[in-house]
């Protein structure tokens, strides 16, 4: 049974191994009303077509704005309209500040959501909403980057046309760095006031320092 006894050295080694891991626990219950994802979600990056202008856009075109990103489709019967309505209400609470916020509504159903359809749909909720349409690869790249699930199953004789998508809204700062994940707006008990607070706080945050800007590049 040699090598089975616990030595003090072993215990110390185990502690040394465990201590930094214990310190790495992220805190979900921060001062924010939503989930703080700063520093661990990839920064804003995509390559799609803007339905309001019909022109290709990338994340660079939204620098300087606070960006909310949400995956959905215009024929969504419940979750999308509910969520977008809640976001619109949160933006109304911001008053003039809302001009610096954009919600990017990324359609996962580009076959049916053409640019005019998408433009009309987002305009019905808020002028600050932008519909984004991409080809299958452009959507897959966004879904992979932000770990979002989606699927489109064309109709067959046995099944109707079916679309699934994630419910989270990502929030990115003016520099494209990840900030928050909003969970409640997709539910029937939305924290609209809390979300408006969070957005206001992000809009009036002091300019990030050099280190924060450097770390946002990765």
């Amino acid at each position, binding site marked *: 049974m*040699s*090598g*089975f006894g616990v030595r003090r050295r072993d215990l110390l080694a185990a502690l040394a191994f465990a201590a930094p891991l214990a310190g790495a626990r992220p805190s979900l219950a921060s001062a924010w009303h939503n989930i703080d994802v700063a520093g*661990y979600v990839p920064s804003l990056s995509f390559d799609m077509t803007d339905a309001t202008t019909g022109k290709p856009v990338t994340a660079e075109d939204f620098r300087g704005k606070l960006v909310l990103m949400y995956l959905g489709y215009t024929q969504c019967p419940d979750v999308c309209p509910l969520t977008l309505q809640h976001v619109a209400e949160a933006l109304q609470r911001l008053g003039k500040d809302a001009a610096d916020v954009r919600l990017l509504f990324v359609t996962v159903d580009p076959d049916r959501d053409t640019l005019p359809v998408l433009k009309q749909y987002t305009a019905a909720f808020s002028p600050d909403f932008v519909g984004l349409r991409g080809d299958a690869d452009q959507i897959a790249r966004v879904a992979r980057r932000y*770990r979002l699930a989606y699927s489109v199953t064309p109709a067959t004789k046995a099944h109707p046309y079916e679309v699934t998508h994630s419910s989270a809204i990502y929030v990115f700062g003016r520099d494209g760095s990840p900030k928050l994940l909003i969970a409640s707006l997709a539910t029937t008990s939305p924290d609209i006031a809390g979300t408006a607070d969070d957005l206001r706080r992000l809009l009036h945050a002091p300019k990030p320092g050099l280190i924060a800007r450097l770390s946002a590049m990765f």
Partner: protein
Amino acid sequence: MLFGPAFAAATAGKAAAARRMHRLVAWPAGVDGTVPLGIIVAAGVIAFLCQDFPAYLPVWAPWDFSWLEFLAVALGAWWYARGVALTPAAARPSVARRLSFVAGTALIYTVLQTHFDYMAQHMFFLNRLQHLAMHHLGPFLIALAWPGAAIRRGMPEPLHRLVDDPLLARVLHVIQRPVIAGAVFVGLIDLWLIPAVNFKAMLDPRLYAVMNWSMVVDGLLFWCLVLDPRPSPPARASFAARMITIVAVMFPQIMLGSYLTFTNRDLYSFYDLCGRLYPTVSALNDQHIGGIIVWIPASMMSSAAFMLTLNHIRIVEDSVPPKAMTEEERRMAAAARRWTGR
């Protein structure tokens, strides 16, 4: 473990022996350089396709290509194949062992570098299956194949110095102590299932890679420690210590698995937020099935390892030449043989 002292012993005649082994098989000139180059070129092509055309790739193509994961599997498999070919026929690992290596390696590759990875990111119970494959079953099969000697023989000469480095042996000597190996084995499963840690690991691609690597490497270290067919020494721990370790790691996994199975609170909000593969499966159902996977198959691996260790003990004992027996002992052994079959 993988690169134990048994084969580190050969030093001076190594190069000469390698040259002799080359002559044992008809090894076409140029293969040694071409295959690794081909692997790197293939990796580059796959990386490009995955980056730009994710929607058109088949399910067996990587969802999120990783150079490190791809090269580790491909080079490991190539070195193993080359090492086996260079081994004199009499000393080659059996077909069963070779198949065990291929199955274990293919399993780890499948759960990490195909679209199964996407599925495992969007269903908790599939995520548990992924961890079961890369921390338990895959490394278990690789350890059963006991491929260290073949891989070492198959890798390029300059790398031998790296795997023979006494520092590596010293590090392994510490982390493969049964108490530490068992604690790390269970600790890693627990760590990545702490809800806050799990949430972060699922969203952060860097942490996700650390999680997967830690599981695979720890799985290999653990199963190579406990499934070592040799007695101690040269194995790092006695059969008894290893059997105790195998049983000891079972209970924390049973506790964790049953906790997940019987909890009526959604602990892992990531899947609800970022979407489930099958939205009709509720968060709690998903979590309960995941709990059963942690609970039953994971701890059953301990039973399998326990029986395999008993078999290793039997083989080792049978290989010890019998000591001189008295007439009385010989008669008793002969009588016993009639019903034990040994």
